[in-house]
């Protein structure tokens, strides 16, 4: 064959060598680029390939009371997780787990649901496993591929139900919260505060998650639980010191009549919350490691709504305790003195047009001065005082005293009280000229009407009265930023006079059953009209009366009268002021001296509801002169 001579072949061999050299240089270049230049990138890819991060839960900061006693702490606990390559394989392993430790089908479907949200993470099977469960599972480890058992700090509330609403509870972060700016940087499965102090101070308490790595193979199977790669230890959360008196909190829980709904809270005149109790309560420890769906449903569907913090999340008509606010308004405006009598003495009612607004005491109180009227809680006196003030003044001063705004306590979910900002409120609610200013004034002057207050709001007012004459925002750890003191605008003499009037309530007035000789208690009962059932009872008091250390407010739903509540409040005050030994251990005898309160039917809780509209209609019909 021509063209196969030595020269030509040599030429072609040279070309062939060049082509081969170039090809190998190209390959070598590709490897150099991959292995040397992009080494870091692929190294990282390789690690993420086989290392699955497992978040390490940081210990939450402890919560202490004002004497350093523990309200919330951490104890060692175990979480049991499973790493599974697929839902089917997870189901198979769960079936084997259920043979070792009890696990019903509901639990299994819950685990599978959680698995779907983060497939490459170990899924939590038991958030809070007992040592027994862990050791049983450990025994069968060979048959349970992907089992990850982790020692985790676990929250414990030694006082349990007694501190439930105060401290709140913790739980796994929700999907919605993950989007929230406040929880930036948290991963699914992180534990965050859900209520109470745990929620309000979550940023402080939470700490920072650590991470460790487990090694998996290409099928997502666990190979080694402890990967050689370094782990990052979690940073513990910071503890918080609260103003709470754990003894008092526990004491209130112990004396609270079982089954009664309501709330009690104790505040020092400086605004430090010493106790915050709501009933019915729940056990915050039940939420640790994930609350069972049954219990969660039960808590939410319970008609008594145990999760509701009645001290800051329920509104009640302020009733008679509000008479002190009316008194303060009249005093600061100089309309009356402490010894002023009203033109019409109490004969059991006050005639307005063709309608009689009655006093709670049918036989009447006679002619009283302001102190006497407060002590006797005489409605007729306050009807006239209210008329003297006028509705505009009541609304204006009420707003100034903070009855329209929440206190700004350092807890989440405090609700606003309902209080009109101006008479325009009634125009909007009922239409202009379709409501009676006079009847509304009378309602407001005895703490009824379109005025509902939270317990904490009323206690703040009384704390101001008992203390410096300024209303301070109550707080558990520190006052919330931006809250400022509201001066009541009363002179020291006027304050002194009102306090005497409140002493008189307990000494000879509506709460005299609660009187004890060794501690002088001042306070005011109240009976909140409740169109849905029996009336609610109020009592807000402070002690010692001459130099108040503590203000305690209590409300019991369906208690019918404030005198029912008064003994409990007095006991709490005694416990705090006199110490544990002086507190009465004897059962409380309650003598109801005001069996009936016949103040006009008034508006309730939510002014927008249909029932309230109907009630408003009937009041208007009754109050307007008939043609």
């Amino acid at each position, binding site marked *: *064959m021509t*063209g196969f001579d030595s020269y030509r072949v040599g030429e072609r061999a040279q*070309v062939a060598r060049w082509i081969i*050299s170039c090809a190998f240089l190209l*390959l*070598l270049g*590709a490897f150099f680029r991959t*292995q*040397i230049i992009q080494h870091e990138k692929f190294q990282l890819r*390789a690690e993420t390939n086989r290392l699955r991060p497992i978040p390490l839960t940081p210990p939450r900061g402890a919560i202490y009371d004002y004497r350093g006693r523990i309200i919330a702490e951490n104890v060692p606990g175990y979480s049991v997780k499973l790493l599974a390559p697929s839902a089917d394989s997870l189901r198979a392993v769960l079936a084997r787990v259920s043979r070792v430790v009890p696990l019903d089908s509901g639990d299994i479907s819950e685990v599978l649901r959680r698995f779907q949200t983060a497939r490459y993470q170990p899924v939590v099977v038991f958030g809070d496993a007992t040592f027994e469960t862990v050791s049983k599972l450990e025994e069968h480890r060979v048959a349970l591929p992907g089992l990850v058992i982790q020692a985790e700090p676990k929250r414990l509330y030694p006082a349990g139900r007694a501190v439930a609403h105060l401290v709140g509870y913790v739980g796994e972060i929700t999907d919605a919260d993950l989007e929230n700016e406040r929880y930036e940087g948290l991963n699914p499965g992180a534990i965050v505060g859900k209520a109470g102090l745990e929620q309000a101070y979550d940023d402080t308490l939470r700490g920072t998650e650590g991470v460790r790595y487990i090694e998996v193979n290409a099928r997502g199977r666990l190979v080694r639980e402890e990967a050689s790669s370094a782990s990052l230890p979690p940073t513990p959360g910071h503890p918080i010191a609260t103003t709470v008196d754990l003894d008092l909190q526990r004491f209130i829980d112990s004396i609270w009549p079982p089954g009664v709904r309501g709330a009690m809270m104790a505040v020092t005149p400086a605004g430090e919350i010493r106790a915050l109790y709501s009933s019915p309560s729940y056990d915050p420890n039940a939420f640790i490691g994930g609350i069972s769906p049954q219990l969660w449903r039960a808590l939410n569907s319970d008609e008594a709504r145990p999760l509701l913090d009645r001290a800051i999340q329920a509104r009640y008509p302020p009733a008679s305790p509000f008479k002190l606010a009316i008194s303060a308004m009249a005093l600061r405006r100089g309309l009356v003195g402490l010894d002023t009598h009203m033109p019409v003495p109490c004969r059991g009612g006050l005639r307005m047009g063709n309608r009689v607004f009655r006093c709670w005491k049918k036989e009447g109180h006679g002619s009283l001065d302001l102190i006497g009227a407060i002590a006797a809680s005489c409605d007729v006196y306050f009807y006239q005082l209210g008329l003297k003030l006028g509705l505009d003044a009541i609304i204006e001063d009420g707003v100034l005293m903070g009855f329209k705004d929440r206190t700004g306590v350092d807890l989440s979910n405090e609700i606003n009280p309902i209080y009109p900002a101006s008479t325009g409120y009634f125009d909007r609610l009922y239409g202009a000229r379709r409501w009676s200013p006079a009847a509304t004034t009378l309602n407001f002057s005895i703490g009824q009407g379109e005025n509902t207050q939270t317990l904490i709001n009323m206690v703040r007012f009384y704390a101001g009265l008992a203390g410096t004459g300024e209303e301070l925002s109550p707080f558990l750890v520190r006052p919330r930023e931006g809250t400022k003191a509201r001066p009541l605008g009363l002179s020291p003499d006027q304050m002194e006079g009102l306090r005497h009037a409140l002493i008189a309530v307990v000494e000879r007035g509506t709460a005299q059953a609660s009187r004890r000789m060794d501690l002088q208690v001042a306070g005011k009962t109240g009976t909140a009209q409740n169109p849905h059932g029996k009336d609610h009872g109020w009592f807000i008091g402070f002690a010692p009366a001459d130099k108040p250390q503590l203000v305690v407010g209590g409300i019991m739903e369906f208690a019918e009268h404030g005198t029912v509540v008064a003994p409990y409040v007095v006991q709490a005050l005694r416990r705090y002021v006199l110490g544990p030994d002086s507190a009465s251990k004897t059962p409380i005898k309650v003598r109801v001296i005001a069996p009936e309160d016949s103040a006009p039917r008034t508006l309730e809780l939510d002014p927008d509801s249909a029932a309230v509209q109907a009630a408003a209609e009937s009041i208007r019909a009754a109050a307007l002169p008939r043609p």
Partner: protein
Amino acid sequence: MRLAAIDRQLAGTALALVLYGLVVLYSAGQTDVPTSGAGAWHRQFLWVGVGLIAAWGTFQISPRLLEWLTPAIYIFSILLLLIVLAVGTGAGTAASSHTWLAIGGHQIGQPSEIGKVATVLMLARYLSGRREPPRSLRDLLIPLLIVGLPFLLVMKEPDLGSAIVFIGIFFAMLFWAGVRPRLILLLASPGLSLLLAFSNATWGFWIVAFTLVVLAWRPYLWDGLAFWLLNVISGFIAMPLWHRLAPYQQNRLLTFLNPEVDPRAAGYHAIQSRVAIGSGGWFGTGYTQGPQKRLAFLPEQHTDFVFSVVGEELGFVGVAIALALFCALFMILVRVARRATDSFSSLVVFGILGMFFSHVFENVGMTVNIMPITGIPLPFFSYGGSFFIICCVCLGLVSRVAWDSRLAGYADV
């Protein structure tokens, strides 16, 4: 005396590659997860033994006898390819294809490997028998037929990787036979046209450029017209052809362009292979210690992707050594082909070079994603009996050619 004349460079390089391959294959089986490759190195020892015997046997056959036998071998291999199409079975990742010949459930080999050698021989016989190298398309019709037949049969299996090797063999041997580079380029142009037809703009540009090239080079009139027509036709059939490809083939080509399109499925091999190689760095993660391999993130780590194990565990240095060995082998093959006593032997050696080169470039290239992924083994490294034996047979042939030329005194030219 006779043995002393054996090409020691060739034998040494080949032995080094075989040993390197065994060492890597052993490591490929050392995983934390049970894989089918665990005992592969053990069985490969057997194949190495068989391969040595086969190489020795081939070494005994004189090129003249081989040339005489060539038509029979070629027809036999075509028959095998036909049989495998009819009764073949799949294996491994390509379980649905017809690449394996099995008797009684035992897979005894892939006829496409024999087909490659047979094609090399047949092409060498035809080309060396001509008076002058092919000068026109008409002259190339028979070579096209010789390669085209097994090529189409292999494509039908389907075994894209082997088909590419046939193309490599074809062009390598035409080049070595002295076909003018212009004609080779014209011959390759329809393939380029096919590739560029993915968009109207590139294809339009291509066909204009090609027309100008044809006008400038002035081949034979009919050749020019034929090539131009072929380009146009392949441009038009590109799309229908694309749609006829199996989805997995389409995906492979697509993920070659961008593996992240489908990182869990089609792009998985390409990504995991690069991750393993890239994590190797300069010196690798240590022999048998590669985590990607151990945890079975590397796919097909004892067959098609065995070179990724080299990259992960022995690093860039290990890769460079392996590539240097292959490069050395190819340079030796070029030398042997250049100094062969006759054109048939020379063409056979260069054809074998084309075949090896296609395998190495495609296989190593796909592990770093500079070539699309096709199921093609790496000579001396990948586990597999029939391919290893064929490689040994080829080396036996080359040794014989080198031996002959040395005895004839050509070696010192």
